[in-house]
């Protein structure tokens, strides 16, 4: 797969826009997941994930092909997500009140007659519950947790993506995981 992506990136660098489509469809779920984990809102996640791919395309000439493309791409996605969180800060209190309702809204909008099978309801509830608890973490912890459990990225890769020292990554993951343990232990 890596070779395929490398090849596609070469083509995109030469200006072949069509080759970028394969890159997007290969990474779309990962990038979307990072954004969703950090922003906790499906619309914003879609918006920022799209922006991340567009930025990647526009700045593709600055990507060093000797490095891992995913590292570079995820970095764009996390940076954009952090920017968005910062921009939202003025409404922070307003947000704090409605925080975490996104997944629940989605659930309550489902028509009664189209009720999901039991298992799916449970996983959907669990899913939005977990996300709600992640959203309760400060953004810098959200970022490392999102990356750590996206594909089980190594701490080294996370430190490269976020451009922070390994030690800091370690501390944040430990603390983030501790905080989530306390919040999720009764589930």
């Amino acid at each position, binding site marked *: 797969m890596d070779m395929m992506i490398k090849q596609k990136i070469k083509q995109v660098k030469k200006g*072949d826009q069509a080759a970028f*489509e394969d890159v997007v469809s290969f990474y779309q779920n990962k990038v979307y997941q990072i954004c969703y984990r950090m922003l906790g809102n499906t619309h914003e996640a879609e918006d920022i994930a799209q922006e991340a791919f567009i930025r990647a395309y526009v700045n593709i000439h600055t990507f060093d092909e000797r490095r891992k493309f995913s590292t570079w791409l995820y970095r764009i996605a996390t940076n954009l997500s952090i920017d968005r969180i910062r921009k939202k800060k003025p409404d922070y209190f307003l947000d704090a009140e409605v925080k975490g309702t996104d997944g629940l809204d989605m659930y309550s909008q489902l028509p009664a007659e189209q009720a999901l099978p039991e298992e799916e309801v449970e996983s959907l509830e669990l899913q939005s519950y977990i996300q709600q608890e992640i959203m309760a973490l400060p953004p810098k912890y959200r970022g490392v947790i999102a990356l750590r459990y996206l594909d089980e990225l190594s701490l080294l890769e996370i430190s490269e993506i976020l451009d922070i020292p390994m030690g800091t990554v370690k501390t944040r993951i430990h603390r983030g995981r501790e905080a989530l*343990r306390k919040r999720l232990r009764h589930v």
Partner: protein
Amino acid sequence: MLVNCDKEIVRLMHEYLDGHLAKTEENKLRSHLQSCEACQKHFHELKRTVAMLKSSSDIQAPVNFTANVMEGLPQEKKRVGYMRWFKAHPIITAAAIFFLFMMSGIFSAWNQDSQLSVSKQKNLVIQDDTVIVPEDVVVDGDLIVKNGDVKIEGEVKGDVVIINGEPLLASAGQVSGDLKEVNQVFDWIWYHIKEVTENVFSIGK
């Protein structure tokens, strides 16, 4: 209670979860867990948290995500579009480039030759840069004039081809065939060749 245990033990738990625990440390953690119920519970909760995070990590992008991204990209540079087309049609491209060079070759040859020249016919009068077919003269066949104007007072039994000149059809002159002004056609072709060559050459850059 965990309070009584070393913070070090919790650190080891996290190191273990990140796969960074050396064998000796792992043994230390293991033996402690066997003797301490509180830490056992703590460790179990952490592993459960991790399992929950992993199990909820298959979040999918919305259905039309890729298509929407592609739509949102800035317009592809034109020359790249040509480039891809040329790559997809190598034979046509080779033919086109050959044609271009051939055409420009003809044209530069044409430009070097700015002398007035006329197809060999009798009784034509040449004044300055004008070829005159006098009133009483009948030209058999095509009359071809290069780099000059043509004034027809008599008759031409054929086509009149004026390359890089103008017809000065005063009044009554007769041309049984077509009257062609090639200079205009050339201008037109040249204009287009220039456009295409500019694109072709910019591709190489």
